[in-house]
């Protein structure tokens, strides 16, 4: 049973309530649109996350395989020496984008100069090159995964919030306003009927005199 809004039973209030109802219905439409857009994006990102996760796992398994071959070929000490030499700073461009009012982070790994990896090319084999190449791929996959996962969380939270608003409008505010408008209309009709019967009674009394 919808809760009635406490108002004075006047025509002005009825007009105000009708305006409010009109506005509430408009807002409901907008919020519903927003919810559908958010859900669409959420599903899209969820699909991409699954794909990115699969890619990440594949990349890492390939990397470990290549790394173990390189370690076997060069030995741990030589490998560690080259790894220290190939250390470098990563540059990630971080910003944000907006999906229907939800701020979502974006990360992009800045492309490093290709071919310059820091280790000695004479002392190392192609296994080492392959390992380096695969680790770069893994880094890219991690950055993509980070963006997708945080987007997924933020969108999920926003969908929940928007859903609550849609439900409140749909099941609480709009039915309440509609019920109050109906109640006021009935009240006015009742007053009209009372007025009519009063007039009739007065007429009868006047006729009797």
């Amino acid at each position, binding site marked *: 049973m919808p809760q009635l809004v406490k*108002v004075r039973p006047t025509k002005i209030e009825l007009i*105000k309530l009708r305006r409010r109802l009109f506005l509430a219905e408009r807002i409901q439409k907008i919020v*519903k649109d927003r919810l559908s857009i958010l859900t669409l994006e959420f599903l899209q990102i969820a699909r991409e996350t699954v794909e990115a996760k699969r890619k990440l796992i594949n990349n890492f398994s390939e990397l470990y395989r290549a790394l173990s071959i390189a370690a076997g070929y060069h030995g741990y000490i030589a490998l560690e020496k080259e790894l220290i030499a190939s250390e470098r700073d990563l540059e990630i461009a*971080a*910003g944000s*984008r*907006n999906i229907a009012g939800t701020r979502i982070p974006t990360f992009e790994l800045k492309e490093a100069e290709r071919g310059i990896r820091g280790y000695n090319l004479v002392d190392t084999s192609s296994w080492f090159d392959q390992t380096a190449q695969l680790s770069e791929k893994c880094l890219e996959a991690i950055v993509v995964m980070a963006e997708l996962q945080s987007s997924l969380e933020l969108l999920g939270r926003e969908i929940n919030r928007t859903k609550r608003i849609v439900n*409140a*409008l749909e099941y*609480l505010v709009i039915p309440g306003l509609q019920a109050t408008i109906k109640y006021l209309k009935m009240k006015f009709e009742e007053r009209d009927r009372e007025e009519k019967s009063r007039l009739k009674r007065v007429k009868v009394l006047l006729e009797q005199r």
Partner: protein
Amino acid sequence: MINELPYERLLQECLRGELRLLNAYLPRQQKLLSDLLREEYPHVVCTDGSTHLFKRKELKYLASLINDDEQEALLLPMLIGVSSGQGEMAIICRGEVEEKVISKILDMPVTPKQQRIMIYKPQLSILRQMLKTTTQYLFSPKIIE
């Protein structure tokens, strides 16, 4: 009065915030693709003062779809108008460049009508998958009036 109800005030605040949120993230000014490609961190400033960062990868992808002259005409981010309660969306386009880009991405011919390209939700998801940062949603004022 309507505000006498305990939940009403809270709800009114929520709705006010919701409406404020809707188009606050739209760019103050769209930028040309050619200009964005020259920037180190390609971005636009939104009406709420925040920045919207474009991914260089996407910009390069867009640049690969069109020639140099067309890059000088493509304004980004492209705006996708959301119509209330309908299954279709409208991409707002000013020239033929947008038409060319959209038709290439969707792999189908598109015809603009009154500076709008109408697409459906399945096509929208393809488009958004390819152009995440270079497109933005616009909630049409027609819905709000």
